[in-house]
């Protein structure tokens, strides 16, 4: 009998040894990531598409994760926030409607089970495409370490009188690629309106990266309709009149190219409408 218990005790101790107590500080110390990158060098950027809503209590915590990622990857991390689903519904307390047809279509397509949820470069991480906010950071890090396969450059030209915006996106293949599609989306920051948070409603919450519209449809347009070899270049231009309710100062253009075969995003770029 005694032997058995010694054996068990030994096993328990063995298990006890296999745990990692982490001491403060818990956050990693981040050096400046961009110091010796030459400006012309193409880097792999990562897009987080976030499904959110102003009635969703955990969504501000999601936005917080996105902000933290911005801090450690200032030039390489881009966010689009789609207000969609049950939590984005409007009522007298939450009167502003941030929902869009494109955002709703993507919400239906990716089927987030809970909010906030995100998609990182539309690639699965641990076999899952739709990710909880706690996993955005490692999924972003994983995508960032990939070799860039495509270069994207955005040129914007905005005429204030007519609210006319022209966007020219130039894509250059750096290697052999699947057929690609390109999406050109408009996002807006600095939007102040009520938001539910874990402690209750925040009346003057600032919504950033809010998806406003696509300039070329939910699923974009063909960039390279066939398999592409390195150094192939193409420029796509669009012209649009901006919606009068948007503040041009706070608008950004986010464009990304995704594989028409796997649906995965291979490169993304962001530019302000007014620099």
């Amino acid at each position: 009998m005694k032997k058995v218990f010694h054996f068990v005790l030994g096993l328990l101790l063995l298990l006890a040894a296999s745990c990692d107590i982490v001491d403060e500080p818990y956050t990693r110390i981040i050096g400046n990531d961009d110091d010796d990158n030459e400006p012309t060098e193409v880097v792999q950027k990562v897009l987080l598409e976030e499904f959110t809503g102003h009635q969703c209590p955990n969504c501000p915590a999601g936005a917080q994760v996105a902000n933290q990622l911005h801090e450690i990857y200032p030039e390489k991390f881009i966010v689009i926030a789609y207000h969609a689903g049950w939590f984005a519904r409007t009522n007298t307390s939450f009167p502003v409607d941030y929902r869009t047809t494109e955002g709703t279509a993507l919400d239906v397509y990716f089927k987030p089970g809970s909010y906030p949820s995100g998609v990182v470069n539309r690639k699965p991480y641990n076999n899952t495409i739709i990710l909880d906010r706690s996993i955005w950071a490692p999924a972003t890090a994983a995508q960032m370490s990939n070799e860039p396969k495509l270069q994207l450059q955005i040129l914007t030209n905005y005429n204030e009188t007519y609210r006319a915006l022209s966007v020219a996106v130039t894509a250059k293949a750096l290697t052999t690629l699947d057929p690609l599609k390109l999406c050109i989306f408009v996002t807006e920051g600095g939007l102040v309106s009520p938001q539910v948070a874990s402690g209750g409603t925040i009346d003057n919450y600032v919504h950033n990266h809010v998806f406003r519209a696509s300039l070329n449809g939910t699923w974009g347009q063909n960039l390279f309709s066939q398999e592409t070899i390195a150094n192939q270049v193409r420029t796509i231009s669009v012209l649009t009149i901006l919606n009068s309710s948007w503040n041009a100062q706070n608008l950004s253009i986010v464009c990304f190219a995704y594989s028409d075969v796997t649906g995965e995003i291979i490169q993304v770029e962001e530019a302000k409408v007014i620099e």
Partner: protein
Amino acid sequence: MNLKITRIIAAIALLLLSKASFSQDFIDKANISGNIYSEASYYLEDTLIGAYKTRENIGANIYGNILYRYKGLSAGVRYEAYLPQLVGFDSKFEGMGIAHRYVSYSDSLFDVSIGNYYEQFGSGLVLRTYEDKNLGIDNALDGFRAVIRPLKGVTLKAVIGKQRYYWESGPGTVRGLDAEWNVLQLLKPESATNILVGGSAVSRYQPDDDPLYILPENVAAYAGRMSLTSGGFFVSGEYAQKINDPSATNSTIYKSGQALVATTSYSQKGIGILFTGKWVDNMDFRSSRNATSNDLTLSYIPSTSLQHTYSLPGMYPYATQPTGEASLMGQVNYQIRKNSKLGGKYGTNIQLSASVANSINKQKLNDTTEIETPGTLGYKTSFLSIGNEKYFHEVALEISRKINKNLKTVAGATTQFYNLAKIQGHPGEESVRALVVYADVSYKFLESQNIRIEAQHLSTKQDNGNWAMLLAEYSIAPRWSFAISDQFNYGNPENERRKHYYLGSVSYSHASHRVSVRFGKQSEGVVCIGGVCRLVPASYAASVVLSTSF
């Protein structure tokens, strides 16, 4: 031991070889059992109650188990298909395939299995893998398990594996050990007193690939338990602890976790009394730090409240808040004697139950850090502290009485406080105070026919307001049952949402087979398991359920 393992390997090898090589015994003397369960719904639309047609129109969940046993050897597979999943189930279920398969060998000393298995250590505070198809939960481990019973009353268990995550495995590897000793089972087998002691340790490995935080890759949890039974008296307790485990459900804080569950009861013919107390502090343990809702749970901390069986008393079900909860429950079952003036010819059963759940007292680490700030220790608390925020309380009384050979009645009332904001995660919403009364009369006639009427009423000024419900059931034993019911949300503050939810059903059962057909509307409801509540959307559907065991 070696011989045993060789035997198992040989048996498995035999199993996988062509059937020609089987000895006849393997086939003739084997036991086969299994079951099939399928539920299919055709969805209709009623936008006013929030019931929508699905794109596919039809949803179907199908499960089939087949188990093979020959002497100590057993093997089984479960096929599952979601074509697509029924409304309210996670869309990650969509698809079909073999969801569960195992081979195991057991005798009086050993029990070893490979493949998928379900296991529970103690009351499940640090490890419980289980399945419940009605809730869409199956977190079986896939790996290896050994159970050894070296002496009568002593059980040792060792497990290793990964948990099921829909059609994949979770990212974390789970290792666990458990020992339990029924002290007197060997020493004094005939003793009326029983003492049980046990301990368990579970550790999870998950790589740290996070660019923001330094995360522990190996997270361990331990638990110790004991119970004592003597005559009608029973007392038991389990205490568990978990080291730093920053996760999706605790907002990435590094505080260690702990939980205590204690129960005592006394019972004799005619009366049973039970008290349960529970204190939980940051004890949500899963095999992935990123898992949410009901995914990949290891700790099982059920709520300390009455489990209701009628619909309106169960409209606001409480679920444990594993990040912090202090709760208490008391329950008395009393039977007024048969053939007494008060008890009537057949006796009368009374059940009185009261429960309460509060927050625990969480204090700021320092003046500048808010409680539960990610990447900190989160908060301070002292063991068994009780916070100011009430989550739930309930006082419930139910009386059931058989009046004569053919007439049975049940009547009950319950008053509840339900912190909607906290439990369902909608901050700012008003807590619900509800009073529910119900009665159930059942009358048997012509030997095997029975009519049962249920009337229920829920009154509250909050949430959706008052509800009334009526149900009538007619059954012909042992095969047929017909029921119609209506739930009417007549007190809804919004006029256009004062809706009737009609439901009709017919079921037929014969031996181990059962078919039931249902048509009607069901209101949006909350299903709670462990610490998480799941919203099941309203539906308007025609459904068929088929269940068979063989």
